């Protein structure tokens, strides 16, 4: 059995700046359950990469283990992918990013993969401000192992077998802000119009960009009582602001009414446009972002949108002063001190 889609290109599909139509960004046929939220997010990733004019081979996609972590096989088939081990994608991404600073790194994880087994690595990749996009497809359960509660399942919610979750849930977005993440967003798999610009903005952020995407598991966690079911999320979502992401090379549109719009200029000159819907929302203000997330949680609401961004943050390469040339491009001539130096080193050891 093969999951590779037959390659049929619709000749009339519009092309992006690189001359690629959107299907150039697709991957193998998904094997997830029909209606799984994760597939919607994959579609969002495909759309974002297309709109951003990403050269697929200049992007590396990485994941851990889980239904969510399978998705990199279902988008960007012209990119190298690495489906690593459960909860350890951050370390593999860190090593990869250290080896070649010129590629774009795109990580996908699940709530089990990140908030339980991978919590240690997640915390530390945030601290290091690794230049990558990190999406958690958050369904509040372990999909692949058939529906056990995850650490993001809300306290008091019932899982498919009817058991009530006794434990406090981990809120990944507020945790990320607390840990010093420099880009934190939250969205819903069913809200493509919000998700795509957020993914684009995340990919352009020059540091660690985290998006926690609520992504209902239709098989194990879409039941009444689950706060991560479609219905629950639809009823309880509150958007902070709608955003647009305008890459540097495109003209910046200015047809938004003054007073409702806030522009955040990214490092490379591209612009994030926020249409202020929620009152007094300032994504540059870490403290109020924290407060808003906590308040929303108290009201059992899910705050979506770009919660916090620090566009001037320095990434890991900058902090440890690595060469501007990708380390994997350096040769013996750059790296090996040679025999004469070794003669001197020997002399010092006598």
């Amino acid at each position, binding site marked *: 059995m*093969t*999951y*590779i889609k037959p390659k049929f290109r619709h000749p009339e599909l519009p092309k992006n700046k690189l001359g690629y139509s959107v299907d150039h960004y697709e991957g*193998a046929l998904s094997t997830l359950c029909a209606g799984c939220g994760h597939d919607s997010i994959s579609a969002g990733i495909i759309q974002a990469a297309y709109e951003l004019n990403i*050269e*697929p*081979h*200049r992007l*590396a996609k*990485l994941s851990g283990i889980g239904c969510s972590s399978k998705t*990199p*096989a279902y988008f960007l088939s*012209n*990119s*190298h*992918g*690495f*489906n*690593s*081990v459960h909860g*350890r994608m951050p*370390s*593999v991404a*860190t*090593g*990869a*990013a*250290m*080896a*070649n600073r*010129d*590629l774009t790194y795109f990580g996908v994880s699940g709530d089990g993969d990140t908030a339980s087994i991978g919590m*240690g*690595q997640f*915390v*530390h990749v945030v601290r*290091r401000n690794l230049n990558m996009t990190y999406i958690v497809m958050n369904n509040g359960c372990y999909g692949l192992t058939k529906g056990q509660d995850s650490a993001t399942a809300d306290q008091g919610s019932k899982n498919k077998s009817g058991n009530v979750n006794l434990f406090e849930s981990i809120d990944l977005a507020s945790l990320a802000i607390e840990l010093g993440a420099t880009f934190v967003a939250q969205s819903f798999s069913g809200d493509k119009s919000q998700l795509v610009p957020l993914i684009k903005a995340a990919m352009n952020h020059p540091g660690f960009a985290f998006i926690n995407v609520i992504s209902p598991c239709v098989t194990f966690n879409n039941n009444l009582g689950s706060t991560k079911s479609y219905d629950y999320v639809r009823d309880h979502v509150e958007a902070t602001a709608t955003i647009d992401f305008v890459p540097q090379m495109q003209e910046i549109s200015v047809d938004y009414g003054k007073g409702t719009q806030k522009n955040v200029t990214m490092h490379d000159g591209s612009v994030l446009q926020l249409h202020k819907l929620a009152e007094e929302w300032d994504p540059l203000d870490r403290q109020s972002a924290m407060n808003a997330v906590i308040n929303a949680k108290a009201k059992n609401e899910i705050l979506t949108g770009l919660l916090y961004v620090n566009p001037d943050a320095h990434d890991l*390469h900058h902090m*440890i*002063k*690595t*060469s*501007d040339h990708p*380390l*994997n491009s*350096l*040769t*013996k001539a*750059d*790296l*090996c*001190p*040679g*025999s004469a*130096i*070794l003669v001197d*080193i*020997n002399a010092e*050891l*006598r």
Partner: protein
Amino acid sequence: MSSQKSKVNDFVVRFANVNGTGSASANFLFTKAIFRMGIPVTPKNIFPSNIQGLPTWYEVRISEKGYLGRREGIDLMVAVNPQSMLNDVKSVKAGGYFLYDSSKKLHAEYIREDINYIGIPLMQMCNDAYSDARQRQLFKNIIYVGALAALLDIDFKELEGLLADQFKGKEKLIPMNVKALQMGVDYIHSNFKYPLDIRVERRDLLGDSILMEGNAACGLGALYAGATVVAWYPITPSTSVVEAFGNYADEFRIDKITGKRNVAIIQAEDELAAIGMVIGANWNGARSFTATSGPGLSLMNEFLGLAYFAEVPTVLIDVQRSGPSTGMPTRTQQSDVLEAAYASHGDTKHVLLFPSTPKECFDLTVDSFDIAEQLQTPVILLTDLDLGMNDHCSAPLVWDDKREYNRGKVLNAEQLDKIEKFGRYLDVDGDGITYRTYPGTHPSKGSFFTRGTSRDEYAAYTEDSGAYERNMDRLIKKWNTAKNIVSPPQVYQEKNHSEIGILFFGTSQYAAEEAMDMLKDDGIVVDAIRIRAFPFNKTVEDFVNSHDSIFVIEQNRDGQMKSLLMIELEANADKFISVLNYDGMPITADNIIKQISGKLKLKTEKSLNS
């Protein structure tokens, strides 16, 4: 007279110090002066898992014959630690010497009739000469080195020369140190007969040898091999591998103009992350390594299985210490052999390399990067605390400028253009080693999905049994290819002389070679082989098959190398006799002889009877 003579350049000095009192640099001064007099010398640190306050020992063997293993029996004890004094007195050989601080009178329980006491009022001398507490502490150590110079006939000029080297750029400190040395010399000259019967005499036995720790040599090897991404988590005794690498990188990897670094060193949150980073970096085309010890190796298991199965080159330096669990964390052992060989679940096997000298630490570390990339698999360099954290006399390090890095089978964009369809796991050459590509190479060809799940030749996920089996069998084919790529063993004879062989690896070499000489003196000739790598190649297999009995010398309880030989060579268990040492101290020749000679007698009797 003759017994007197044999004590020249042949004795053991042990220093009993308190951890964290600056004794290490003074003791090293002593060792290095003897080294510079051309006499083989081998120091061992015996230190606690503690930063300050607990007893620590530094044991130095001086051997005209060039035996660099440890030897039991202490000829001279420098006892400056009241805490361990009672045991220190007991550990001196009859007829030996006990140097102590006589500022306070020695209590009666410390007095033995059969040893000689050399009392020097170290504390008193320091209190009189220095007002600063720190100076009193530090110079106490220098004074006893001065006293030893007089007692053992160490060339004072060598000590002065070493101080000049040590304080280059801080020349002001030299005269103070020389003065302290001189205080020690003078005290001996005016109070004792000198030199002692145990003493040194200048020789030229070391040629162009260097004195170096194995860990520093590993770090330097990784630098020469072109490692650019290093991820690690601190653990004794491996920490100084990365520290050494970092120091050399500060010197040789910083761009003079931009100040930017041709290296990324990351202290990870744990060993899982460290090995994950190494795998990610190697996957992405950089040379990358980590260094750890037993507990770290245990944590790295799952990832090692991924690297084996997904075929990502990985270099791991395991500086072994005494296990199990936290064991004796600051004592040596060779007890990670099986853990490393079969790390991770499922059918996994890993390439192991076993260096035994600093030069080999350097060479085999360089090789490990070539081998890992050639074979696209993890390579684990198994060294140990003794080799890693003690100075060893070693042949000098050599680098051939013509040597190129062997990056293995990696396709670039032009090569990909010429290929119809790229198959990441397609065995094109029939050696089990397939072609890989780095991410970012080609816009439309050569991308693939790396995963720990089963896949077909084109890296597509599959649960087809046939494809799974083909892949597992190809990995074994690759394993067989590896036998001719890894370092060959050192064989000690051109032709077999005996039905009996001895087999050893790593730091057991020193004591094993000395034991072989001792056997030879008794007229017993045995054949010998030193294993340098796993998988075992044909030479190892032939050695095992062509001897009736083989003593396997190793520093662990369970005879792990013996097990590995039995499993992998399907050799008869009766053939192997374990010679073991697992007390945490480096194995000695006497210990080997004690174990071998009894069993050797039994063996010969058995063969006479049958």
